[in-house]
């Protein structure tokens, strides 16, 4: 297991890109090792998709180095058969039978068409779409189209798969299924670079996290260490019988931040060294609290906290 995670497959150093008046990516660096599931996280417009497009040479960086440890051509970009890509902007041929589109997309990535057909049918079978293989894409629902798009990106068994928002447009049941598929292709040897917003899902699969905000690196490291660094705080969720009062903040000590979830719910983050006994006694004095839950911050909380701090 250690060997699997030791060889860098992609090294990005001081990458920058700007568009007219916007600095989309600013001097970011990261390394992805073989076998990683590397989560690229950030709010909308943070520079995630721009970075992924630069990695694939769809657009060019203003400065910085990209070093692939894969077999490539003259431009040092890996050969297409080694890379899988699920773009954020989904799109497939809508007026052509699904199976033909899948075989074509796999064959331009170097897969033998007859093998691609067999593999495509296997995937369609697993995703419950085998009987619709000869239908045109436009006949499928949005969720099913998303499944076809996913198959198209990994059908040729890439060594490195870039999945931009793989869970968007999927219902919770299918999101869970996709997690299993991603884990499976990772077990089979594919390194995964994924960008997503669904922190709860990312937590389940990623081993490394890169958090980007306004084009700049906010955090880069393993998932376990992000909890070590930022996950030792105490988070208490409060549910009120009546609309939550605005002045709770003043009545409590050692509060780091407070978020109003809705009119009745409030999430309070306390500092790491907070004395919980004291906090609970302070909370006991506040009227109308009907429920209180204490937990460690999850990735979603850490994400929000880090972005907030970075913006400040």
């Amino acid at each position, binding site marked *: 297991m250690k060997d699997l995670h030791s060889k860098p497959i992609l090294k990005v150093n001081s990458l920058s890109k700007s568009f007219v008046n916007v600095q989309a990516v600013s001097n970011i660096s990261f390394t992805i090792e073989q076998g990683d599931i590397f989560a690229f996280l950030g709010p909308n417009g943070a520079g995630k998709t721009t970075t992924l497009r630069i990695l694939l040479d769809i657009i060019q960086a203003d400065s910085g180095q990209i070093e692939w440890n894969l077999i490539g051509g003259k431009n040092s970009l890996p050969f*297409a058969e080694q890379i899988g890509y699920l773009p954020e902007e989904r799109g*497939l041929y809508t007026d052509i039978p699904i199976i033909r589109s899948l075989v074509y*997309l796999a064959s331009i990535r170097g897969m033998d068409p007859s093998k691609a057909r067999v593999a495509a049918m296997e995937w369609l079978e697993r995703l419950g779409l085998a009987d619709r293989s000869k239908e045109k894409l436009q006949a499928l629902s949005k969720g099913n189209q998303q499944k076809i798009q996913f198959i198209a990106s990994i059908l040729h068994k890439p060594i490195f798969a870039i999945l931009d928002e793989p869970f968007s447009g999927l219902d919770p049941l299918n999101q869970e299924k996709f997690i299993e598929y991603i884990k499976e292709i990772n077990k089979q040897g594919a390194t995964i670079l994924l960008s997503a917003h669904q922190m709860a899902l990312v937590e389940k699969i990623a081993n490394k996290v890169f958090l980007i905000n306004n084009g700049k690196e906010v955090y880069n490291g393993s998932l376990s260490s992000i909890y070590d660094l930022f996950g030792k705080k105490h988070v208490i969720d409060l549910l009120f019988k009546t609309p939550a009062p605005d002045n709770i903040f003043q009545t409590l000590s050692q509060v780091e931040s407070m978020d109003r979830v809705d009119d009745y719910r409030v999430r309070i983050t306390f500092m790491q060294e907070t004395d919980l006994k004291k906090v609970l006694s302070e909370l006991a004095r506040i009227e109308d609290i009907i429920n209180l839950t204490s937990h460690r911050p999850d990735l979603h909380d850490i994400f929000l906290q880090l972005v907030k701090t970075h913006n400040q």
Partner: protein
Amino acid sequence: MKYLNQVITVTRWEYRRFFKPKNELLGLSIMLLVSIVSYFGGKYAFSGSSEKSDLIVSQNLDCKLTERLLIDFKLHEVPAEQKSTIIETISNEKKGILLFNNGNVFTIHAYKDSKVLKNLRTILDEYQRLQKMQDIELSQADLDNILSPPTIIESFVYSKNSQRRVLLTYFFAGLMIMAVLLSFAYQFTAITGEKQLKITEQIVSAISPQVWMDGKIFGITLTGISSMFTYSLLGIIGGILFFQFTGAPVSTIINYLHLPSILLFLPFALTGILIWNALLAAIASIITDPNNSGKSSLMMLPLVFVIASFTVTRDPDSALSVFLSWFPFTSATAMPMRWAITEVEIWKLAGSFFVLIVTFYLLRILAAKIFRVSILISGKEPSWNQIFKLMKES
């Protein structure tokens, strides 16, 4: 090799995407049906018109004229006094023709002009001429002698500009126009359609813009050529059938298939179509919404150049014709046309063809560059200035 394999894959995909034998067969069947209907319909229409029309004439008409009129008309002789009554009847019943004469002056009364009257006029002209010939005692043989053309013996040093060569150039130019029009439609669907379906990003993450562009150019050219081939074959078969119907031997049309001309015209036409496809692909690359793009009209540009090359036929040795036969956007049709009409040395043919090949090679690179910079532009369509600026930056 990798490049070649990828180009072949994309070419095959584009070809299979657009060339649909079923649709082609359906189109041909419809054309065949229309031809059959027109042929037999025409025959039926003509058979209906062969019936003799009624003609009312005055009793004092010259008997020679009456005899002639009887061949084509059913005659009804009436006294001169009834003239006004008959004119009124024609007006009321909206039919009938009345012919009266006063010496050499003929008067025709009819409800409206028609084909029958055209025939009547011809007969009257003929009659009048014969009358005048008799007046000056001129026989038909004397007249034929006067009207016979002079005997001219022609001798040319260069005599290869046969009619069949010229006809073949027109045929190939026509096919090129057809191929360009087809390419126009296919390139639009292939490139702007993929942009609208947002497939482009997926494709160019797997293959380079150059491979993608080359595959599209070759695939769509192949589609155009396949259609050209189908319709040419249909034209030849149709021609043979037509000649058979009209009693001419099959060899009449086969004589027009001049092999040396075909061997020369084919590579010129093929390269010409490739050039136009490369240019059309470049234009289509920057169009984001074909319904609202001002650049769509540019797609008709190839047609203007192909038609312009026809000016060569007026004076194949003029400076303009020589220029058109070298200029790569017109030479694919202009040079074969010049070759068919006038004397063109082999080195000039080879040189013009070389320029065509080089132009195609460079145009496909330019098309891929334009595509690369415009690939992710959506929303407002970029201007040419923006495109060239982006190309410089990239």
